[in-house]
């Protein structure tokens, strides 16, 4: 006995297929119309020729691509180091901020003060203070401006990430801790094995989101002298009196962000599926 859909079911399937085809065609038509109108509006503008020459000049793009890539390599290395260390710092601060008991008050106060002040301070000013202020002290063994600038980025972003982690920790229901403690786990063990795994999993999307933001902000280190991708592009812009290098750098940054954004989306989707499992 093989299964054959009833006539009514076949009708249903056929109807759904027709509807799907119709909606795809409508979407394609709508997109084509919008695209055409935009193209006509932009390329038909009286200043289009000058804008095109100024922003989309292939020769200039080719000439400055190697230097911009060279700068992007600096961005990438900085991103890996800063993201890793800032995550660790953020997690540490978040744990300190959620400590219990009156004895831990000074630790909580320091951690809270840190997140308050460094979330409010503009990153540019922190970089200036670190990269121009600290060498001015003329101490023996002052690290290079690259290290100082990276430290400024880590400290600023550590504050943002600490708050994200704290939100995750506080979103875990108190009954979880209570249950863990009643099973004989110490506070530290309960945090380590019960609370933190759930907390980190819950806040994975905003963490990755902050990492995407960090990817663009590491470039601010160029204030201190090192040449990153945007700075290399800026030099090209000034030499050629043409904005194409900025466009090249922008495209490269977008390509760099794509994998991270894809991972973020996938993690979010997976978390949502898990959350709603069994409903």
């Amino acid at each position, binding site marked *: 006995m093989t299964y054959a859909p009833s006539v009514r079911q076949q009708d249903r399937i056929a109807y759904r297929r027709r509807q799907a085809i119709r909606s795809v065609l*409508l979407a394609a038509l709508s997109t084509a119309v*919008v695209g055409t109108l935009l193209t006509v509006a932009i390329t038909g503008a009286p*200043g289009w020729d000058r804008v095109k020459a100024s922003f989309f000049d292939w020769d200039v793009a080719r000439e400055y691509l190697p230097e911009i890539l060279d700068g992007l390599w600096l961005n990438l290395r900085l991103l890996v180091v800063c993201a890793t260390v800032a995550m660790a710092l953020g997690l540490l601060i978040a744990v300190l901020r959620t400590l219990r008991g009156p004895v831990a008050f000074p630790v909580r106060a320091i951690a809270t003060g840190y997140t308050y002040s460094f979330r409010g301070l503009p990153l540019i000013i922190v970089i200036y203070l670190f990269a121009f202020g600290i*060498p001015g002290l*003329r101490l023996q063994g002052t690290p290079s*401006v690259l290290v100082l600038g990276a430290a400024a980025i880590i400290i600023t972003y550590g504050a943002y990430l600490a708050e994200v982690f704290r939100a995750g920790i506080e979103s875990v229901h108190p009954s979880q801790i209570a249950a863990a403690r009643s099973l004989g786990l110490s506070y530290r063990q309960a945090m380590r094995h019960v609370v933190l795994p759930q907390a980190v999993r819950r806040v994975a999307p905003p963490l990755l989101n902050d990492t995407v933001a960090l990817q663009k902000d590491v470039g601010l280190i*160029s204030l201190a002298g090192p040449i990153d991708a945007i700075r290399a592009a800026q030099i090209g*812009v000034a030499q050629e*009196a043409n904005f194409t290098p900025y466009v090249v750098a922008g495209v490269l940054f977008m390509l760099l962000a794509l994998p991270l954004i894809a991972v973020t989306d996938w993690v979010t989707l997976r978390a949502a599926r898990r959350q709603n499992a069994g409903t």
Partner: protein
Amino acid sequence: MVSRHSPVALGGVLLLFAAVTACSPVEENTTAAGSSPSAAADACTPSSLTTKTPGKLTIGTDNPAYEPWFSENKPSNGKGYEAAVAYEVADRLGFQTANVVWTQVTFNNAIAPGPKAFDIDINQFSITEERKAAVDFSSPYYLVRQTVISTEGSKIAGAKSLADLKNAKLGAQVGTTSYQAITELIKPAAKPSVYNNNDDAKAALENGTVDGIVVDLPTAFYMTAAELDNGVIVGQLPQVGVPEQFGIVLDKGSPLTGCVTKAVDQLRQDGTLAVLEKTWLADTAGAPELS
């Protein structure tokens, strides 16, 4: 899923874009009726010139405006070499001091396509072939030399030649010909540091983050004399190819270019520029030459 609202939505989208695209493009400014650029070159008077505000000359420069080109960051006081040149040019075009308006213009604003916020822009702009493709330049009003400055006791303070600078850590302001001088002339082993402005470059020099910085000669004299505690001029870099010159920037195809160039030429020929240099810029003799 196609709802019965789809046609309505589609129509709405179409209407919206039709509305957006129907915005009539801004007409390019044409020169005032009855004055072609060539005719304007014959009669350079406020009444015949097409300026942003009729009867006024809008001059752009960046903020902060640095010594010795401007003074006290107030271009309108007419002090400093470029401020003085700007007022002389305005005077030759027939604009009285009261009819000169200053506006802040960054480097990028000056070279961007689209309508400009200024009639003329004077901001230590070096005339280069690449830049000529994006903007108009007047004839040059200053012949500039790039110069290395450092601090006493640094390892390059006694440098005599370009070879002595090979192992130095050098810095310059971003987007300047000073930076190009480092990468194309000195070619140091270490990558040069680039700063947002000369103030940051100076701070890095004072901190010892860099061994030396490259600026134009008048700025070098000003910095070592007035701003750095123990600054020294290491030397001027050799000229290669065409001499480097500053020019006044105008919009590409500006109807004023001919008149402004004529005014600058007059100032050069009758010796006014030489007098202004003596007044506002240090005597540039005595800066050593690097071979």
